[in-house]
């Protein structure tokens, strides 16, 4: 099918949860001029037009909203929670969760886990430690 838009690829067709070597990595970017952050990576800043440099995101953040996916797309063998997370570094990121207990307002951590067709990517896990 033409025009297939996949949520896990950016507009340049690159997987957003991998680096250029194909290693699972939350790679965003930060503007060298105004400090604005972005995910996926940008080269030009939307705020000020400055240049963005790559920024490794730690994956810790707060759930802005969460929903259950009961009828999963191809490549997922079961339903899952899906969360919209405000990362500590700034960007808002969408992603599937580990387990089914993630709720709005919780602190979560992106962890490396199988996502689609067993391929490694990131899922959000509740932060249980202090």
């Amino acid at each position: 099918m033409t025009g297939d838009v996949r949520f896990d690829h950016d507009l340049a067709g690159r997987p957003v949860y991998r680096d250029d070597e194909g290693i699972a990595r939350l790679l965003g970017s930060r503007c060298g001029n105004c400090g604005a952050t972005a995910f996926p990576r940008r080269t030009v800043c939307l705020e000020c037009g400055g240049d963005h440099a790559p920024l490794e995101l730690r994956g810790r953040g707060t759930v802005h909203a969460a929903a259950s996916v009961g009828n999963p797309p191809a490549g997922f063998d079961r339903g899952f929670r899906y969360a919209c997370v405000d990362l500590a570094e700034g960007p808002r990121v969408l992603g599937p969760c580990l387990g089914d207990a993630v709720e709005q307002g919780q602190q979560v951590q992106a962890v490396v886990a199988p996502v689609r067709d067993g391929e490694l990517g990131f899922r959000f896990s509740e932060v249980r430690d202090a």
Partner: protein
Amino acid sequence: MSTQGPRIAVIGGGAAGMSTAVHAARLGARVTVFETRYPGGGSTGLSAGVFTTTYSDPLDVALRVESARALAELHADHALPVIVNGFLRLSHRDEDTQLFAAAVAEQHRQGVEDARLLDRDEIARRFPGLRVDDVLSGLWAPGDAYTDGHLLCSVWAELLTELGGQVIRGTVDGYRGGAPHQLRVDGTWHDADAVVNAAGAWAPRVGEILGHHVPMVIERHQLCFAHLTRPLEYLMPTVMDYAQGSGRLGVYFRAEGEQRLVAGLHSNDIGFDVIEDPDDFSAACDPEFMEQMAEQLLDRLPGLDDMGLQEGYAGLYPYSPDGRPIVGPVSDGATVVLATGGGGVGVNLSPAMGRLAAEWAVNGAAASEHAESLLPRRFADAKGGAR
């Protein structure tokens, strides 16, 4: 504490140094530990803290049996948190199974009576979720345990203080030999009748200041955390999927609370990710490591395939050239003593290493049949060996 006992200066407040300090104080010495950060603030505090007796060599087992007894005492008498989760080695080759059988025999001989071989079915039954189709047997020591490196050093620091010793925060930056030895710590001079270099990955640098060579290879090793979506119905033992002498890194993991595992890559062979400067290494996990861990953990724990990995950190293994610790005077009769080189098992060995080092420093002799085999002089003939 005696006001007449010898003054012992211990450089390094990690597991080896704190253990040496407490043992020396018990022998009547006046002990001062010099530590740049805080007790357990170096590699000790980054350790997975695993204690096991599952070895076949009599010396390896003897050091670990002594250490296990000391750990049990610290738990019983001083409330050190110790989690008895057991230790399981996996065999994939007949020669490993034979080695495991020899290890069980040696452990039994030295009083670890509950160590035994498990067959594949029993491993599968005890630890659901673990993939065993490629496993021939397991070496199982149900009494093995883990603790926390920081807390271990904190307990020893308290004991040291009760015995009249002290921990001074500072870095040794100068030395004058003679009787007594004089150490300059952040500009202030301290006298000592004997000096113990227990600085772990920093021991070669301390050795340069003190005028002795410490043969050492420093490796960086990483660990990570696995998040589980539900509590396990059993306490995950420390599973070591590494074959002794295989020359490759093996995955290990153990319980960390109800719904998490700690996991990393271990080897007793030397030469992986060697670093030159212990103050200049990446303390964060590499993305490649996380990828490798995810593959290996999902492969070994298919029953827990809804796990997710969170990066942990990297710490240092201070290896001696033969992988055994270096404990004893730098030369015959010297009052500068080494207690370092524990590699990836230094926390495990620290109770035994500390006793030996303290006896060398305080008495000039160590009462153990194994003391000779750990002396620095075994490297004297090697290139770059001790002098």
